[in-house]
């Protein structure tokens, strides 16, 4: 790095200190507004990771890794020539020289943005030395903090969190998910004192105690004393008043402090209780220096949420590129799920506005609580508190933010619907200026405009407007507004499968099951119209196959399949097919390998190892398929379903039979799974993987179903995907035995089959599943819908009726009649011409074909 401006670059130098959520958003905004034309941008981040989603930090413990939490495009900086210095702390700002001090030297700046965020406050409680006892003073802010918690938790039984606010409760949840007995100690008389009122605190406490987390409110910690090896726990916490609590580790979550040291040291104006003072354009007392995010103090306020930080980031990006944005404060309403409990706080939750009146709804039995704060004249919503059910949140927030007039009976807004509650505020009642996504400042008007400009689904809308790509809290509202907009444009939200069936795939699945419909004709007769088409036929073929498992070549099914399923082989670009027998788990005997080789040379097929641990033979003509399969089946092979929307492969690693690290028989499990589910037809293909230990050589976390061996059993991951949009699978259950594993997978697969849309991989299905992973766990693990047995028995039917489709077809001369290139001639297609490359055949390109064949026959 050079110490001063690079001479050959005439652009100004812009330095950003801090690569957290807000710093990163600022970079994105600068790039979007073309700032790289005028500025050479340097970003410094003390953390070694790319910017990541701190808001969803806790998901690090439920299966997401640093990559999955990373923000934005991985190549963003490189693509746009932004210099990113990770793991690099700025130690000082020299305002006179206009330079920042880095570990490698000094770097000049024309403009500087401080986005250093905040740090966790650890009160000076007397206790053991933190060098030798780090587990007595853990914090919860960065990925590294979470790694430290995870490693200390391995040897711990009990963990205590000091601080019962929003983050403290998240930390307690994390401890619980790591298998510790968790406790929360709060100095105030109630939990979440900032966001909740007294009743709300009581309701939340009941929920949380119900989950087995100890809650100790009104307790001030005076000392943490180390215990001896003879004791059960490592530390004893002494509270003012004499009570004690023993624990193995302590996480402090007693509030955050703005990280303003650099600014302080170089003499910028700092607030009385910390924070870098900024004006409406986010400038500090030095006009060339900006501060944004949690380190900034605006009108005496620090904003500890990401949305206001993003607004500041946009403001600065605007300032530097000639925009006009101003920061004018932000709404601090929040909605979250803490330990599975809905908690919401909107606007003036405490009713501190003069003359404010409140309505309260309390359900002591169910620990539900809702409070609505309205203005003195009873016309507007000022704030609200929700515990136990956030379905009221979106509507209340819109009333509060947009000053919508209250209905005649304001209490109806917080009453359950069946007790005279008002229906949720329809999306059409919102003004165009209503903010739908506060993270990205997207208004209803902007959503409407995007729809006008052609956004036809939520995915497109998210790309176009960025709505719902921050904290995700606005997803439900966005969907509502979107569908409302479509409807109001007369583009009725049409979920029909196609012009022949006015039903969704899910509805058709239910009709087939419930009415016992066994053929396409019958379904078309009863519920459809026309002849059908290339959309509904394969979809319904798949549904019929899942439900009744009839052979795919049976006469009533044959016209439904696309060519791959019809001929049980994959069509290639020249009209020939590939042949892919099952090689379950990737395990194959030498004898069978020889047979594959012999068959391939006999029929002159191109041979390749696939990405799915098996062998594909390419270039067979239609009429050759039965002969090829006859030989393969005689050698003990069966169909590999490479052509179907069905179970593909279960990738395995060698596991504990050979590998020195393996802890379970991963190959054995892969074989069991593949043989159990082979033949199951699904809305889209399904891939699985089983690894013998955490090194994960089978890449199970990139599969629809991933299984990783543990000392105690298996960890199950679900809904991963490679392909076009890779998605990391999520941890679904830990340390389960083989029977439980299989039961969960049975249920999971049948639930997916029942509820997914056509051609929807599990990853996309999961992302559209309301209630997300928690809901899925409830349905599969807790059997909340009481479907468990039914799903298992439906799966059992498929397993019991499995039959190799190729063996079935070979046994029936009628079916074999279809495998003719020409019905009136035994020859093959004369237009198929191969050339040899690397010792194997491949289709000739146009310029390699003999002249005579390239000429079209005139008609």
């Amino acid at each position, binding site marked *: 790095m050079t110490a001063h401006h690079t001479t050959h670059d005439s652009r100004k130098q812009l330095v950003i200190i801090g690569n957290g959520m807000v710093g990163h958003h600022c970079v994105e905004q600068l790039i979007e507004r073309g700032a790289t034309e005028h500025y050479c941008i340097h970003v410094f981040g003390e953390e070694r990771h790319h910017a990541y989603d701190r808001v969803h930090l806790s998901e690090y413990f439920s299966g997401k890794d640093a990559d999955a939490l990373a923000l934005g495009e991985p190549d963003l900086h490189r693509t746009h020539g932004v210099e990113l210095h990770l793991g690099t702390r700025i130690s000082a700002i020299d305002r006179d020289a206009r330079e920042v001090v880095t570990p490698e030297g000094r770097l000049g700046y024309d403009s500087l943005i401080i986005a250093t965020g905040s740090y966790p406050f650890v009160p000076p409680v007397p206790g053991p030395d933190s060098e030798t006892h780090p587990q007595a003073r853990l914090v919860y802010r960065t990925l590294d903090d979470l790694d430290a918690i995870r490693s200390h938790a391995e040897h711990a039984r009990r963990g205590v969190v000091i601080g019962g606010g929003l983050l403290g409760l998240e930390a307690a949840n994390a401890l619980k998910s790591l298998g510790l007995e968790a406790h929360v100690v709060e100095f105030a008389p109630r939990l979440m004192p900032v966001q909740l009122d007294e009743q709300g605190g009581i309701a939340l406490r009941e929920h949380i105690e119900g989950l087995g987390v100890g809650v100790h409110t009104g307790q001030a910690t005076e000392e943490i004393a180390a215990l001896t090896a003879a004791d059960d726990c490592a530390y004893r916490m002494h509270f003012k008043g004499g009570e004690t609590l023993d624990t193995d580790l302590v996480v402090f979550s007693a509030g955050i402090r703005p990280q303003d040291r650099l600014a302080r040291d170089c003499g910028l104006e700092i607030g009385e209780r910390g924070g870098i003072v900024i004006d409406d354009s986010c400038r500090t007392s030095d006009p060339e220096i900006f501060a944004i995010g949690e380190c900034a103090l605006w009108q005496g306020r620090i904003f500890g949420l990401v949305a206001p930080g993003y607004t500041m980031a946009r403001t600065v990006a605007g300032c530097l590129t000639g925009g006009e944005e101003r920061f004018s404060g932000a709404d601090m309403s929040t909605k979250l799920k803490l330990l599975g409990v809905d908690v919401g706080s909107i606007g003036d939750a405490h009713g501190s506005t003069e003359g404010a009146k409140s309505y309260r709804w309390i359900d002591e039995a169910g620990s539900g609580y809702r409070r609505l704060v309205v203005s003195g004249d009873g016309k507007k919503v000022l704030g609200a508190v929700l515990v136990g059910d956030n379905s009221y949140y979106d509507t209340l927030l819109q009333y509060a933010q947009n000053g919508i007039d209250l209905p005649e009976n304001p209490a109806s807004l917080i009453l359950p619907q069946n007790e005279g509650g008002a229906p949720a505020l329809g999306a059409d009642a919102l003004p165009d200026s209503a903010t739908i996504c506060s993270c990205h400042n997207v208004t209803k008007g902007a959503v409407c405009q995007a729809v006008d400009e052609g956004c036809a689904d939520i995915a497109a809308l998210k790309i176009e407007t960025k709505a719902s790509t921050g904290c995700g809290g606005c997803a439900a509202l966005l969907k509502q507004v979107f569908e409302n907009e479509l409807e109001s444009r007369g583009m009725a939200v049409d979920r029909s499968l196609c012009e022949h069936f006015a039903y969704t795939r899910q509805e058709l699945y239910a009709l087939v099951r419930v009415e016992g419909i066994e053929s396409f004709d019958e379904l078309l007769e009863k519920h459809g119209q026309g002849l*059908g*088409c290339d959309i509904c036929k394969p979809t319904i073929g798949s549904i019929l196959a899942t439900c009744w498992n009839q052979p795919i070549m049976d006469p009533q099914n*044959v016209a439904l399949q*696309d*060519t791959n399923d019809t001929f049980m082989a994959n069509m290639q*670009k020249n009209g020939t097919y590939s042949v892919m027998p099952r090689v379950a788990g990737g395990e194959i005997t030498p004898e069978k390998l020889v047979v594959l080789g012999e068959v391939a040379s006999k029929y002159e097929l191109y041979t390749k190892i696939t990405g799915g641990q098996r062998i594909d033979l390419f270039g067979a003509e239609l009429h050759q398929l039965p002969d090829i399969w006859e030989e393969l089946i005689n050698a003990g092979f069966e169909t590999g379903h490479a052509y179907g929307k069905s179970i593909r492969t279960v990738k395995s690693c060698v596991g504990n039979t050979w590998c020195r690290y393996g802890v379970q028989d991963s190959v054995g499990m892969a074989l069991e799974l593949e043989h159990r589910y082979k033949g199951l037809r699904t809305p889209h293909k399904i891939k699985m993987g089983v690894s013998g230990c955490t090194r994960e050589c089978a890449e199970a976390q990139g599969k629809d179903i991933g299984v990783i061996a543990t000392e105690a059993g298996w960890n199950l991951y679900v809904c991963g995907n490679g392909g076009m949009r890779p998605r990391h699978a999520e941890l679904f259950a830990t340390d389960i035995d083989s029977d439980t594993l299989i039961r969960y997978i049975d249920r999971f697969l049948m639930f997916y089959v029942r509820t997914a849309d056509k051609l929807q991989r599990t990853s996309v299905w999961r992302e559209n599943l309301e209630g997300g992973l928690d809901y899925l766990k409830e349905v599969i693990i807790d059997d909340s819908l009481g479907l468990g047995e039914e799903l298992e028995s439906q799966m059992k039917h498929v397993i019991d009726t499995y039959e190799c489709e190729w063996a079935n077809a070979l046994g029936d001369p009628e079916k074999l009649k279809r495998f003719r290139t020409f*019905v*009136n001639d035994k020859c093959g297609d004369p237009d198929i011409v191969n050339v040899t490359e690397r010792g194997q055949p491949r289709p000739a390109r146009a310029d390699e074909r003999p002249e005579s064949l390239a000429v079209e026959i005139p*008609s």
Partner: protein
Amino acid sequence: MTAANAIRTDDIHELCSTADLVAWSGVVALHQGRQIALFYLPRGRDRRGDAEIFALDNHDPFSGANVIGRGIIGDKGGEPVVASPIYKQHFRLRDGVCLEDDKVRLATFEVRLEGDRVVLFDNA
């Protein structure tokens, strides 16, 4: 097209028998070097009437492969079509016109069902 009674008998060729056809689907016959895709609708395009048969060139102009006879048949707004199995364009069964690009048209052939025979009227 000429009237049926003006066709000489040596212009009528038997392609195959009706038993070779597959209901609501396609097969391919070879006739003097031409590949003819035959689509069989046993109850006609409204699924209520008499059997119908359509014949199109088997060559898919989009992929260059001879595969049209292996596409799925169905209808678009009541118009019977076949979808190419490679890149999924739709062609009208009655005149071969491509719905996605009406400049592209597959050759059609005059084919009829006579008893259990499928015959081609070669009026080229």
